[in-house]
């Protein structure tokens, strides 16, 4: 059961910035994931995928519907889930080491053990030598490695990633994708990865949940046929091209529903 995710009939509205009425951000969203699945939520910006991710984590309550993780209903964030943010959101007054240790402190892990685990994870994300640096001293890609390390350090069974590579340059993004897969293949955590980059979703995921905007809903869930471990070669295969095209058609038809 550990690591399973069950999203049932989730609705969420936000008040509109100006004028009356609410903006429907999520409309009756349901899907379920088996433990160890790498799922990618793909959709245009504004389709509510980040909101859905926050509801799954418990950072935000749904208006109706529910999320169950490992059979338990989500009511608040838990240290069984690691969150990686698009804008990294590292504590700027803490060093790399301090940021990675942050969740462990909340878990009540004793200091020497904390240090040991943080060092291990920092090595895993290839940041050894930078333990005493502050976030502002690092590049975006490196900051996101810290963000990933912070999430991995608490040894969660589920990793929630909100467009984590959306604010780094293309080369760094591909590199980080490779490394994420390597780390994931060893740990086999459940991952929910939000992105608007179709190729990224196909390269990383087992399962792609395609979301459409206005009204926000899941328009399709498809399985990715590529085997594991994945290598960069699949980026250039005709199959990749065909699937990208297929998902793009799906997104576009979703967009025209709106009229």
């Amino acid at each position, binding site marked *: 059961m550990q690591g399973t995710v069950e999203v049932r009939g989730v609705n969420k509205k936000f008040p509109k910035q100006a004028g009356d009425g609410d903006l429907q951000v999520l409309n009756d969203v349901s899907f379920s994931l088996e433990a160890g699945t790498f799922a990618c939520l793909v959709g245009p910006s504004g389709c509510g995928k980040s909101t859905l991710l926050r509801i799954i984590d418990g950072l935000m309550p749904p208006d109706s519907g529910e999320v169950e993780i490992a059979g338990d209903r989500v009511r608040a*964030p838990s240290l069984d889930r690691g969150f990686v*943010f698009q804008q990294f959101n590292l*504590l700027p*007054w803490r060093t790399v080491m301090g940021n990675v240790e942050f969740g462990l402190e909340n878990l009540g892990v004793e200091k020497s053990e904390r240090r040991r685990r943080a060092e291990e994870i920092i090595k895993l994300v290839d940041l050894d030598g930078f333990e005493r*640096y502050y976030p502002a*001293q*690092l590049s975006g890609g490196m900051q996101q490695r810290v963000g990933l390390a912070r999430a991995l350090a608490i040894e969660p069974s589920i990793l929630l990633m909100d467009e984590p590579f959306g604010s780094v340059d293309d080369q760094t993004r591909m590199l980080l994708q490779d490394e994420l897969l390597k780390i994931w293949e060893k740990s086999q955590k459940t991952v929910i990865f939000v992105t608007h980059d179709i190729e990224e979703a196909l390269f990383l995921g087992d399962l792609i949940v395609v979301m459409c905007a206005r009204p926000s809903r899941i328009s399709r869930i498809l399985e990715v046929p590529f085997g594991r471990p994945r290598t960069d070669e699949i980026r250039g295969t005709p199959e990749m091209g065909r699937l990208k095209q297929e998902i793009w058609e799906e997104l576009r038809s979703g967009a025209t529903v709106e009229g």
Partner: protein
Amino acid sequence: MQPEARGILVPDELLTEDAPLSVGGIQPDREEPKSGLRRLLGNKWFLRAVFYGAVAVAWQVTAVVKGTFFLPTIPATLRGLVEIFTEGYAAELLGTMQQLVVGLLLALLVAIPLGALMGRFRFVEDLLAPYVNTLFVTSKESLLPIIIVAVGIGFWYRTWVVILFAVFFPIINTAAGVRYVDKELREAARAFGTRPWRMFTRVYLPASAPFVVAGVRLGFGMAMKGMVIAELWVLRGTGRLLEQFSSSPRRLDLYYALVLLIVAIAVTTNEVLKWVERRLRPASRVLGRE
């Protein structure tokens, strides 16, 4: 991957506000061949030496021309400075400063928690903001007579005046610092299971620390001002000395020396707190990013 190759470490001495920030080693454009005069004008220490030298000369000339009844000469003031210490006047100033510190600490004890609550909880802000803002813009001097009525002119009088002068900046600054703690940082802390109390100590406090220290610094300046005014009003401590040196027998050399000493204490404390403030600002630990 050597650390040196990927991050930029910057020594603190480059971070003073005097040094223009240069990112990635790029300096602002400057015309290369400079004449001697232009280089001198670009040197702030040269400019300061010339300017303050001129002020000192003007002072000395005025003192000599108008006579020391109106303005003591510079050497006389310096001798006065020595006399402040040898004649025991400095002890009076020390006593004043001790009392100021007591008042300031009491003010901070109230101001920082209160400001933190105002910044954190909307209802506390709604409740207290009108009161704080009104008193903040009110002339505190106008309240001296009623303080005397209430507590007399002893220890509590001066303490209350200092509190009244010093309390508002730390309240307002702390509230602002806490209010503007990044929403994203709070969300990240929440995602990693941070409970309310730890949220306060591990996120709100460090994030707002530079604001709090800035508030303390401004509060200290106000405390100095309040203390001198309070003592001049009832002719106690340093205030009594200032009054005594400026009336008969007039000792303007001692008067100026004492004022210089007060200014020196204020400026030094201010600079120390500014330094602390800079150290607490995370962004000041670096210049650029890749």
